């Protein structure tokens, strides 16, 4: 018998290999360090002129620019080295001004004909390119509490309007209790509020001669508020990350109350954290008159550290949520200020209130929601207790000279950094619920580069050692196995690129491990062939039965490993996922190369001739 493949099988193999080569090819082109220029404002566009300004600034600073181009998303400035790129960032940012966002990025150098086919290099994980990974948790209990507080003041207003007499409204442990002296008031309040606030559950109780109406969220309402808080925070975080000007950021939901933020290339983690985690907002209040007293007044201190205080009305004119645009600049005296434009509704509200308050003082209050965690020991176990609180401080108190409209400015900020960050936060929007960091990983760029070097180095040496061993042990068949192994790696890289999978350091380890394991299928086949030859089978038959009988073993062995790899992918996070990806892809591609491609080579070389001696 002879071992021959039909022509179409050879062609199919060639086609797969050609595609593999094509898609793995871009990985040979190293990425360029670059600056990505974009703009968040409708008034500014990245055009030739902006590029020219950047170019001139770089020329004066003696930084060599590799290439400047306009892209659909803005502009790209390519540099020869990472140091040039880092040095160029502040220069370009200063030259272009506040309207533009300058971001560090790595851009592929894939030739156009390749990228037009959809081919590009595999994405590098944070551990290989450097950057920051945050895991944030949305404080959903705080979101619920905030909603209860808003409802409480609305309920008070409704009860007052309908002249239902209540003694007090308190919120404790997620329960809003309204206290009444008369049971008649209780029942009319219940009927009234049930109609107005259907999202709550109502219960009544009587205690020490007084009547209480306990209001709690229904499960559905709770879920809805939590989902809304998460969604709103996602949107806000996306806006903020865009404002930070990070190229290819990732802002993604994880589980029911967590958000992953990955910022490749960001080095200043402190600034990134400050802006991502900031819960700062503004509120505008009128100063209370001297005769005003009681619960509707609150006394706040100024943020300038002078210890001055002012008495403000609790009623809020507008909050930072009504701001449609904000930018930072300096006033006549060189002090930082923020210019604010309000949206239509906010502007109307502002002019309505200020019209009747000309001559009175208006305060701008800066609020920050913070949380502090402490570890307390309960039942012998350390437990993290998080307490959220807000810090309020007046940043300015000024006399209303005339009716305020859509745009005005606020002063009284500490530093230019504070004013520009406040402007950024106002533009990006406030968080619907406080968030806190539950995980953070920063990888410096030098460590990333070192990881790549180490990974590639060990992959090359590992490959060499395996190939040498196979060659010595299996002679000509060793060559077949080595060709298959090399093609396996090419196919694996191609699959990574096509799927857009992320390559991490454990991912590279997975590739290296795959190399060791990928020869397994060939080892199985070859030792079968040897066995058959030893039992006196003619060479052609030995090849045939060696491949055939090893097949089920290979299949069973690889499917079980694949199952484990898939589980690893499902439960793993970050770098571990990267390992699972390369391991499972490696198993699949190695089955193809070790069985089909090796067989094709064996058939080509030995298949046509009868009883030729096999060098195995």
């Amino acid at each position: 018998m002879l071992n021959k493949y039909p022509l179409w099988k050879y062609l199919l193999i060639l086609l797969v290999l050609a595609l593999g080569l094509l898609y793995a090819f871009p990985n040979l082109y190293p990425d360029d360090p670059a600056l990505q220029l974009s703009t968040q404002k409708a008034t500014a566009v990245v055009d030739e002129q902006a590029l020219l300004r950047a170019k001139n600034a770089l020329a004066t600073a003696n930084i060599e620019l590799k290439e400047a181009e306009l892209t659909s998303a803005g502009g790209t400035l390519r540099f020869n080295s990472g140091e040039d790129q880092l040095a160029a960032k502040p220069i370009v940012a200063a030259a272009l001004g506040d309207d533009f966002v300058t971001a560090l990025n790595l851009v592929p150098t894939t030739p156009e004909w390749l990228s037009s086919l959809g081919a590009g290099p595999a994405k590098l994980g944070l551990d290989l390119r450097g950057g920051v990974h945050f895991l944030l948790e949305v404080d959903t209990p705080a979101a619920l509490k905030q909603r209860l507080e808003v409802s409480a003041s609305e309920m008070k207003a409704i009860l007052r309007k309908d002249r239902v007499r209540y003694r007090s409204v308190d919120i404790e442990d997620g329960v809003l209790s309204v206290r009444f002296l008369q049971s008649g008031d209780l029942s009319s309040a219940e009927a009234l509020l049930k109609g107005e606030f259907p999202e709550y559950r109502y219960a009544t109780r009587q205690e020490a001669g007084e009547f209480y109406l306990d209001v709690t969220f229904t499960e559905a309402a709770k879920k809805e508020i939590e989902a809304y808080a998460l969604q709103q925070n996602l949107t806000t975080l996306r806006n903020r990350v865009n404002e930070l000007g990070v190229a290819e950021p990732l802002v993604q939901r994880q589980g029911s109350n967590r958000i992953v933020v990955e910022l490749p290339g960001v080095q200043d983690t402190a600034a990134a954290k400050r802006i991502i985690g900031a819960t700062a907002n503004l509120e505008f209040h009128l100063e209370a008159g001297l005769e005003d007293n009681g619960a509707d007044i609150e006394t706040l201190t100024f943020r300038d550290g002078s210890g001055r205080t002012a008495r403000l009305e609790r009623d809020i004119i507008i909050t930072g949520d009504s701001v449609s645009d904000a930018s930072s600049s300096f006033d006549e005296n060189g002090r930082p200020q923020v210019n604010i434009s309000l949206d239509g509704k906010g502007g109307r509200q502002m002019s309505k209130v200020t019209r009747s308050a000309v001559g009175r003082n208006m305060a701008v209050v800066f609020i920050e929601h913070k949380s502090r965690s402490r570890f307390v020991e309960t039942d012998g176990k350390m437990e993290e207790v998080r307490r959220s609180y807000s810090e309020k401080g007046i940043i300015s108190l000024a006399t209303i000279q005339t009716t305020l409209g859509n745009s005005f400015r606020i002063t009284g900020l500490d530093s230019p950094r504070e004013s520009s960050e406040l402007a950024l936060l106002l533009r990006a929007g406030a968080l619907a619920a406080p968030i806190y960091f539950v995980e953070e990983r920063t990888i410096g760029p030098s460590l990333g580069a070192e990881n790549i070097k180490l990974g590639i180095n060990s992959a090359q040496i590992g490959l060499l050692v395996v190939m040498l061993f196979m060659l010595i042990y299996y002679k000509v068949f060793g060559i077949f196995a080595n060709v298959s192994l090399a093609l396996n790696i090419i196919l694996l890289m191609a699959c990574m690129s096509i799927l857009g999978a992320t390559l991490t350091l454990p991912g590279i380890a997975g590739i290296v491990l795959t190399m060791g394991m990928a020869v397994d299928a060939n080892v199985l086949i070859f030792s079968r062939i040897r066995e058959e030859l030893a039992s006196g089978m003619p060479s052609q038959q030995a090849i045939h039965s060696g491949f055939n009988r090893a097949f089920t073993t290979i299949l069973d062995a690889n499917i079980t490993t694949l199952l484990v790899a898939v589980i690893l992918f499902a439960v793993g996070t970050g770098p571990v996922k990267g390992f699972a990806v390369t391991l499972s892809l490696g198993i699949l591609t190695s089955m193809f190369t070790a069985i089909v491609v090796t067989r094709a080579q064996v058939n080509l070389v030995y298949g046509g001739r009868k009883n030729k001696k096999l060098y195995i």
Partner: protein
Amino acid sequence: MKVTNIPFMAMRKIVAAFSVALILISLGSLATKGLQFGLDFTGGTLIEVAYKEAPKLDDVRELLGQNGYSDVVVQNFGSTTDVVVRMANAYTPTLGDEVLSTLQNHGSNEVTLQRSEFVGAQVGEELREQGGLGMLLALAIVMIYVAVRFQFKFSLASVIALIHDVIITLGFFSLFEVEFDLTVLAALLAVVGYSLNDTIVVCDRIRENFRIMRDTTPYDLVNDSINQTLDRTLITSMTTLFVLVVLFFLGGEAIHNFSMALLVGIIIGTYSSIFVAANLLLAMDVKREDLIPAPKEELEDDLP
């Protein structure tokens, strides 16, 4: 080619005693010393910095102590110029930045940040749970697959062999106080996959031999099967160990423990696929009838 004829199964009692001893040592160590869980699982803060010139670790400790960071662990990481500072739980997320600037604002020795990590206590706990769950899930799915493709005795034998490998690898990490982090967990799961691969190949041969060698006792048959696959088992383990040794020495600190877990696991896995799984099969009295359906007429009696 010669097929070896080593009486593996004659050593089965000794080997079983050896395995049991290893498992007892491992469990003992796990019970008394536990695992050195890394930051991923305990939560806490870690920063790695690179100094231009190798600093004295005591100086770094003292500097941090003076600035109020008392409960810190300062170690070299990979080289004498790389320093890792680890801090326990009760800190805030800004801690990493503060420590970094403390180190940077002191002396003329240039300090650059390599990486900083902060993991909340709750996240660490969840990762630990998830990891354990993943391991159990992997074992369960493998058990089902082998039971379907082979037979229940094979499934039990291979899963016990896997548990054997995992426990001994864990025991190694516990006994030698090697840090156990997320990558080690990944390696452990890879070991499960790899060791299974090996065991399946042996089981496959046993199944095949039951079909063709009709007059051999199960004892000899299992022994022959192991000998027939020995060549392949050793070659594959060897190529894999080659690359792992390369990874261990050249892959860098970040995957040092990862490659160590794989090295240990694969050595144990190779041992267990030769000795443990087959041993268990014999102990469970594996028979030809387990794999080859009984003659048809017996079945017909059961039909209504």
